[in-house]
């Protein structure tokens, strides 16, 4: 998928003014923030569990190559075929080749953010294969030709009325307004697609090294149909998703749905091991697993490695006051919110995402809820430091920081400068002690007054007082 994060600032203003979007986003608080809060306390030793989850992820990441090999051996032993994709283009090529090899004309998909990362649907359509998204949210977005705006709730930016209009237009059926009716309509269209598809494409929440299994966590049941009905199943996921054992994954599963959707457990947890063979009555005849790097391995061993702990729950964005006000599309690539503001520059280019590391107040709400304790603000700060080192910061900002840095290290001149500065600003503040505009800081004064300083500095007043 093309990175449009360069347009972030302009998109922010568009999104802030979009009343429909703002209305849709207002539901994040009740649905996700309060939802998580209601069930996360069911985990009695939450902090210990988060620490254990982070340790499981770190254990894999510290030795990723060997865990991947273990996974590959087990997956092959159970009849799966494992493919390694270095780039998104490689992944698309591999899927297209698998499709050609098995004479695939139609494919059904369950939700996969990695496939969004690759732009897989476009690649398959280009190769003449009809692809249908079957996760309800993704299906809606496919009809609307839009990208997901959230990694768990892809259609969170749309309200019910928009979906009613969309279904009526695209399905050419009478306009439904009830949620159940709308779901039923989608279900009637999707069901034959499942039954007729030659290939099913899924993502993976986890890869289990000890059994070679792909584990997916879903709610709608489409995931099971996609992975078991068609002749061919292709699971595509990032190389960082491995966990050592089924035991380990249970720890992560205690945290994932609670953090993501405020559910103690999702409706379906599917552990998919190998293809249909003489011993199994169901499942795909051919099971392909594609492991995508796309820049992930470059983070191993570096200061950003902790980002690869991510289990894609979306809690960071649900709790992010920036995301809550602008939604996911403004971020310009596949992954939005705090995790996206880190992953996008890392996987898709820091130069082309100049705002993402900076559009955070470092409020820390994300890190406080992250189930695997990723220090998201610290990682964002690391990216800002990289921007500074690589000369990607504006000259104005660099100059201001230099001046400030120099002043603070020269206390006498600092004292003089602040003494003069506060007097001028105090005068400008007038009777109400408010500045309505402030040159160089219109970003502040366009929407807020600037409270004027009171006219003297503490340090001069304190010195006067103590020398009296």
């Amino acid at each position, binding site marked *: 998928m093309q990175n449009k994060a360069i347009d972030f600032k302009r998109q922010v203003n568009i999104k802030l003014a979009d009343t429909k979007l703002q209305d849709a986003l207002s539901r994040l608080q009740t649905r996700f923030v309060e939802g998580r809060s209601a069930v996360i306390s069911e985990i009695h030793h939450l902090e210990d569990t988060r620490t254990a989850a982070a340790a499981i992820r770190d254990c894999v990441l510290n030795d990723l190559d060997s865990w991947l090999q273990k996974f590959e051996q087990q997956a092959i032993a159970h009849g799966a075929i494992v493919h390694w994709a270095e780039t998104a283009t490689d992944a698309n090529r591999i899927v297209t080749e698998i499709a050609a090899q098995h004479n695939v004309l139609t494919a059904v998909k369950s939700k996969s953010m990695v496939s969004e990362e690759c732009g897989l649907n476009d690649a398959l359509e280009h190769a003449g294969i009809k692809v249908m998204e079957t996760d309800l949210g993704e299906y809606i977005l496919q009809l609307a030709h839009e990208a997901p705006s959230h990694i768990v709730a892809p259609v969170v930016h749309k309200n019910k009325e928009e979906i009613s209009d969309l279904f009526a237009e695209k399905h050419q059926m009478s306009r439904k307004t009830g949620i159940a009716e709308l779901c039923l309509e989608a279900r009637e269209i999707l069901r034959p697609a499942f039954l007729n598809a030659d290939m099913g494409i899924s993502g993976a929440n986890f890869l289990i090294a000890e059994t070679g299994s792909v584990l997916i966590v879903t709610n709608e049941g489409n995931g099971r149909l996609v992975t078991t009905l068609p002749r061919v199943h292709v699971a595509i996921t990032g190389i960082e998703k491995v966990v050592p054992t089924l035991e380990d994954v249970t720890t992560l599963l205690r945290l994932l749905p609670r953090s993501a959707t405020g559910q103690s457990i999702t409706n379906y947890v599917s552990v998919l091991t190998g293809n249909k063979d003489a011993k199994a009555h169901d499942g795909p005849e051919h099971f392909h697993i594609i492991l995508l790097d796309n820049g992930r391995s470059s983070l191993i061993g570096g200061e950003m490695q902790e980002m690869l702990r991510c289990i894609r729950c979306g809690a960071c964005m649900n709790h992010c006051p920036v995301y809550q006000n602008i939604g996911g599309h403004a971020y310009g690539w596949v992954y939005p919110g705090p995790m996206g503001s880190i992953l996008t520059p890392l996987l898709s280019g820091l130069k082309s995402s100049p705002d993402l590391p900076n559009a955070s107040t470092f409020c820390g709400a994300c890190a406080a809820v992250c189930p695997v304790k990723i220090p998201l603000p610290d990682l964002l700060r690391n990216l800002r430091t990289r921007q500074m080192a690589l000369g990607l910061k504006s000259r104005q900002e660099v100059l201001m920081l230099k001046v400030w840095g120099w002043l603070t290290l020269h*206390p006498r001149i600092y004292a003089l400068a602040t003494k003069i500065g506060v007097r001028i600003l105090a005068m400008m503040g007038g009777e109400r002690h408010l500045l309505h505009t402030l040159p160089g800081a219109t970003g*502040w004064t366009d929407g807020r007054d600037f409270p004027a300083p009171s006219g003297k500095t503490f340090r001069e007043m304190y010195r006067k007082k103590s020398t009296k």
Partner: protein
Amino acid sequence: MENKVRVGFFVTCLVDSMRPHIGFAAIRLLEAAGCEIVVPAQQTCCGQPGYNSGERKSTVSMALKFLSEFEEFDYVVLPSGSCAGMIRVHYPELFRGDPELQQRFTSLAKRTYELTDFLVNVAKLENVPGNFKGTLTYHDSCSGLRELDVYNQPRALLAKLPGVKIYEMVESTTCCGFGGTFSVKYGELSTRMAENKCQHIAAAGVDAIVGGDLGCLLNIEGRLRRTGDHSTQVLHIAEVLSGLDKDK
């Protein structure tokens, strides 16, 4: 406290230049708690603006300057959770490569406190001198809350004032949108976050919005005044607790 502890007071650059009386209010509280206060004269800024903008070099120099000025005290107290967080959490991280310096910064970090945290958990202040009368709501600033666990401390101190009634607003722990340079770089977004906060304050229907970090308070005050609210008082917790609420 039985033996007078020596407290190095760091006023913070924002209080120094914008609202000096908050500094005096904090000192009055620390003295009421029986502390001996020293204000190192050459203090400037903790370095957080540069640090959060990715400028490590000058931050390291500022941290070393801070260490040389404050290392000698029993405790260091600041009327800001944000700057206290910088010293407690981030200074030691800056010196990972230098065990000796890191050890000194870690020791300093352990003795550094946000004002209300110090008053409640170290000085155990019993009698709060303030005489504020009215209703107020408390905004929990992010760094104090999430880096230093400051939540109950200001509320416990405010509860000691008989004339104060606290009405909790919804989302008191949600960021007000200040974020240092964020407030200028992403003005519209920052303003929207401030507006959300102001709406919660209005819904609480109080005489004053109180907080522990001047940056947030200026942001909130700026939005309140711009939208025509000239009556809701915007006060630092030190002003409310000390009874010193005007520049003198």
